[in-house]
């Protein structure tokens, strides 16, 4: 009764073309909301054990893509496999950690009570629960506020409680929607250090941001705009391929070249997206050997 997911994207072909089993494997991923295509034919892989940045302006479809990956988004078509299984299927629910954009914690519980409840939901045995909660609080540097009501914490602190929830039970894939928005620079640096420590332990992280200067903290980037994938590459390769100094410049150049191709009149329905994707994929192959 509770495990059916009739609209989960069906697995049309084996994930064989993603050589070292990708943590997230998307082919022709499309999400429709009303009459609008919020995500339009995205194809990409997220490599296991890396920190991948999902960058794009606000409204570009980042949150929708993240919700599709964690299995809370309806009307998803195409192939979307997570840790080798169709996204949103029951066995993934304890293996994928998810942090929503606004902190999803109970304002009328303390930080520790929040974590204690979510730990129980994740099935962490009672004997290990206190230690797991303590570890998560330490990871996000909140031990001094553990017994404050989440509703009385600052915005940055309550978003760290939300992040700590996702760290419980050491998930294999962590999907974070704008986790560093509004944090002070010191804390932001500490969190990125934490993300890389987690990646070193083998966790795959997919982190969205609309702040382009966070790009260089990621090993791999997915650039999206208006629901289409502009590029999927390393920050370095992105800059080199577009002859830009910063990822932000690279983003602008990709947007402009996509526009140019559309206005040149060869705009088949997915013309711009396809050509960018092809370019990104060929760049991907050329840089693939280095990582």
């Amino acid at each position, binding site marked *: *009764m*509770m495990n059916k*997911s009739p*609209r*989960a994207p069906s697995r049309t072909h084996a994930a064989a073309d993603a050589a070292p089993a990708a943590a997230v494997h998307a082919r022709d991923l499309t999400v429709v*909301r009303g009459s609008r295509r919020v995500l339009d034919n995205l194809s990409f892989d997220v490599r296991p054990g890396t920190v991948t940045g999902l960058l794009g302006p606000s409204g570009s479809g980042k949150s929708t893509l993240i919700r599709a990956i*964690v*299995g*809370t*988004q*309806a*009307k*998803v078509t195409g192939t979307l496999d997570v840790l080798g299984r169709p996204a*949103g299927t*029951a066995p993934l*629910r*304890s293996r*994928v950690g*998810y942090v*929503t954009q*606004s*902190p*999803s*914690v*109970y*304002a*009328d*519980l303390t930080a520790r*009570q929040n974590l204690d*409840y*979510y730990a*129980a*939901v*994740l*099935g962490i045995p*009672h004997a290990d629960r206190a230690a797991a909660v303590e570890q998560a609080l330490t990871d996000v540097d909140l031990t001094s506020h553990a017994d404050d*009501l989440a509703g009385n914490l600052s915005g940055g602190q309550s978003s760290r409680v939300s992040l700590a*929830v996702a760290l419980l039970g050491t998930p294999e894939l962590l999907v974070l929607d704008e986790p560093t928005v509004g944090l002070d620079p010191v804390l932001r640096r500490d969190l990125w250090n934490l993300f890389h420590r987690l990646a070193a332990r083998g966790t795959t992280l997919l982190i969205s941001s609309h702040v382009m200067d966070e790009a260089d903290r990621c090993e791999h980037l997915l650039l999206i705009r208006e629901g289409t994938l502009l590029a999927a590459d390393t920050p370095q390769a992105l800059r080199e391929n577009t002859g830009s100094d910063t990822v932000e410049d690279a983003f602008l150049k990709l947007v402009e070249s996509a526009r140019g191709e559309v206005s040149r009149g060869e705009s088949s329905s997915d013309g711009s997206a396809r050509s960018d994707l092809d370019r990104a994929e060929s760049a991907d192959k050329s840089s693939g050997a280095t990582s």
Partner: protein
Amino acid sequence: MNAARTLATARRVLRQLAHDPRTIALLLLVPVLLLVLLYYVFDADRRSFDSIGASLLGIFPLVTMFLVTSIATLRERTSGTLERLLSMPLGKADLIVGYALAFGVLAVVQASVATGVAVWFLDLDIAGSPWLLLFIALLDALLGTALGLFVSAFAASEFQVVQFMPAIVFPQILLCGLFAPRGSMQPALEAVSNVLPMSYAVDGMTEVLKHPDATGDFVRDAVIVAGSALLVLFLGAATLRRRTA
């Protein structure tokens, strides 16, 4: 369904309430104060107090649990915690039964205080056992919880959800036989009152008022209220979607 997750959910809901002593005080004291008010309203007519008081002991838990659950569930939906829970290995039944358990505990406390005050201090004169009153009150509370959970799916804000209270609960109060015997209503209204669960809650209370033992009618009323609560809980479960647009 998983017992550990269900109990964890019930404990979490109770912990949330524990941080809100004013809500607890209001939940426990308001029904008692209203009964005291009613006692003095019927200062010269104690028989009317007996029948209306007994009915109200069934109506209070339904109304308060409806309000508390609908708002708590709406907050769960709008704060993102529901989405997060449903992306975790939590069954829908774990969540719903967890809520029902937590509010059931609260309802038992509320109904015990109200029934105790009514029977011992306000000399509510009932033929049957106060335990049967308490039992029906608990079923009413479950029904209120179920209805609250269900309507919260159709409200986008707290403003909307409180409007469901006059829309869903008031007609039942008007038609349940509290103001006029159901048999004396316009036949169409009597037919409507026959399918509204609160009518049976009040009928059950009246049975306890009049008869020393649990009668067949009492059992029928209790089964109908419990069945309605279960049915609406299932409908409520159907409104919880793991995937949303």
